[in-house]
């Protein structure tokens, strides 16, 4: 560098300069900025006016609710417990709350790297599901039995999502590995399963699991309807997830596996220590995507008579007194979905940062 360096070019700094440069660099730019700015502000204030300023908040003021007016949050006060708990017996709602917390906590813990282990993770989930069943089903410690027809609301949504993912993930890894196998029969079977299941709509699969299975399977092998539906859903999830993981596996240069073989590593060691960690890392964005889709798809179980949170939301507005407040209820249910899905996305972003750190 030369000693007599020139002064840096005169760049205006600060937000005003930034705005002038980026938002108002020409007449047209300025107009577009003003136009969009006004639109965004308008939408924001309309939403604020509806949801907060003009809203009716308590059940006592229900008479003030008028169609076309602000939001009527009284409906949440009156029907909120129905939305959150579905048909679960009213006096036992605390059990459903705890059960939901147990699953969410288990989900949270299994996101912490400390719990990632071949032994720790399954143990954690066994404990989580065990606790959930104990609380929800009861029958021990003086808890009354609550059968699965009465389960509902948020805990059912969370249970279905968690069990589909927990059962589906290992299954998807097996399917992905089988589809890459050297043995033609295994490769063919895995490919066949994936292609057949992917060609069927989820709705058909769940409907068959809930409604058709009782006709073709003997009584003793049927199990609970909820269990059948979760298993069918998990297989569906696994088939999609298997392809995502396979994509991750294919991104790994074949030289790595050959090198591991040359070192004398056995198949499962190669898979666990070399292939899967890299495959998971590169397929992470698609995997989080699949999780999010699955969480939202749980609402399809309402078609076979399960009272998950979308169905209980419908039940909440399906009465004369509240039929006009469907928007408020949908917003409420939507906000719950948002919390979970947004949490998932943030977690995905954290994992990606972490993976990048590991690589560096």
């Amino acid at each position, binding site marked *: 560098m030369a000693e007599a360096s020139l002064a840096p070019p005169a760049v205006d700094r600060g937000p005003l300069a930034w705005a002038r440069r980026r938002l108002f660099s020409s007449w047209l730019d300025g107009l577009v900025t003003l136009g969009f700015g006004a639109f965004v502000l308008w939408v924001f204030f309309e939403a604020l006016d509806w949801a907060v300023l003009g809203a009716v908040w308590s059940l006592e003021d229900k008479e003030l609710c*008028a*169609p*076309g007016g602000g939001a009527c949050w009284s409906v949440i006060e*009156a*029907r909120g*417990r*129905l939305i959150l*708990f*579905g*048909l*679960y*017996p*009213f006096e036992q709602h605390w059990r459903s709350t705890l059960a939901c917390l147990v699953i969410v906590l288990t989900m949270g813990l299994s996101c912490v790297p400390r719990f990632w282990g071949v032994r720790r993770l399954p143990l954690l989930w066994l404990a989580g599901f065990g606790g959930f069943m104990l609380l929800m089903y009861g029958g021990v410690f003086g808890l009354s039995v609550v059968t699965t*027809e009465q389960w*509902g609301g948020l805990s059912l949504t969370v249970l279905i999502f968690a069990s589909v993912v927990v059962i589906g993930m290992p299954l998807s890894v097996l399917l992905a590995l089988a589809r890459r196998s050297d043995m033609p029969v295994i490769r063919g079977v895995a490919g066949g399963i994936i292609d057949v299941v992917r060609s069927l*709509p989820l*709705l*058909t699969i769940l*409907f*068959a699991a*809930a*409604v*058709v299975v*009782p*006709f073709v399977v003997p009584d003793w092998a049927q199990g609970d*309807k909820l269990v059948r539906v979760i298993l069918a859903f998990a297989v569906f999830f696994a088939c999609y997830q298997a392809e995502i993981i396979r994509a991750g596996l294919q991104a790994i240069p074949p030289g790595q596996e050959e090198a591991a073989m040359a070192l004398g590593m056995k198949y499962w060691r190669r898979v666990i220590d070399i292939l899967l960690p890299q495959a998971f890392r590169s397929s992470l964005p698609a995997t989080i995507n699949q999780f999010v889709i699955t969480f939202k798809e749980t609402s399809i179980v*309402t*078609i*076979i*008579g*399960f*009272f998950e949170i979308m*169905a*209980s939301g*419908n*039940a*909440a*507005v*399906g*009465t*004369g*007194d509240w*039929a*006009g407040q*469907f928007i408020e209820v949908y917003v409420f249910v939507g906000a719950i979905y948002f919390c979970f899905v947004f949490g998932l996305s943030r977690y995905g972003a954290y994992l990606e940062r972490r993976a990048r750190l590991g690589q560096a």
Partner: protein
Amino acid sequence: MTRKISSLLCSAALAVGLASPGLADSGETVATIKERGSLLCTGHNGSYLGFAEVDDKGKWTGFDIEFCKALATAILGSPDKLQIIPVSWAQRFPALQSGDIDVIIKVTGWTMSRDTELGLQFSRPYFIGPTNILVRKELEAETSADLEGGVFCINAGTSIERIVADYMGARGIEYEALNFEKGEELRSALYAGRCDALAGFGPFLAATRFNAPNPDDFVIMDEVLALEPESIAARQGDDNFIDVINWMVSALLMAEENGITQANVDEVRANPPSASVERLLGASPGMGERLGLSDDWAYNVIKAVGNYGEIYERTVGEQSAYKLPRGKNHLWLNGGLLYALVLD
């Protein structure tokens, strides 16, 4: 009511129904229910206004649910010996065939294909479902003819669409149809003045009117476009069970005919005005044995849920939010289509 079910689900249900008609042997259903100690009856996957709703505490209420309670009381002696299983519209027939439920009480129209192809047996109708027109009062329309050239909001893909087309076509009345997928959209469109009238199932119209910004702006016209008899469905081949259902419905109607209510049933029983009322309430024997039930089953039912009129007014009629006029669901004495069978 015929509702939108995707053709896929419909054919799945149909295939299942065809595959195993007549799962129940004669007389088995009541025995199974007694052995289990509870009746498995239909709920809804959500709420169906007035007929199967969930209250703030997660308890089922509604017109159909009251009939579930009545049936549970008739067979088991108590309205609490009842399990409501939530099922969707598409799921109800296969669920009945597979034994997930004992009976379908779910505003289910008695149609020929269901009766003959799905392995179902229907009871006598317990509700007459009218298709009506809800209209803006300011139009001062008295009959459908006054709506010439008007805009109708109609639920897309339902039988309502066909009913309105047939009815108006036969009378040569021109109209414009505005179709919507969901009930909420239909309502919003009507409230916003996008259509002059809304054609639909009577109870749905009553709820729509009730929820309007100003209910007095709207009126349900007396004219009936079509009637659909709603019946209780059981598995084909169990004659005894159908008998029990028919006589349960009949007992509720007979109670109303004779002015027997939940409140005065004990009084009437102690002091029966006629031999048939005496038998109905089990004060003299004969009512139960012939059906395989206890002699006082009808008394228990009335004590638990009241007579037909009381059930109606409480769930969809005057005492409910919907204020649905009885119309054709009055007893024949009052110009309706309902009557009790002869109790001899």
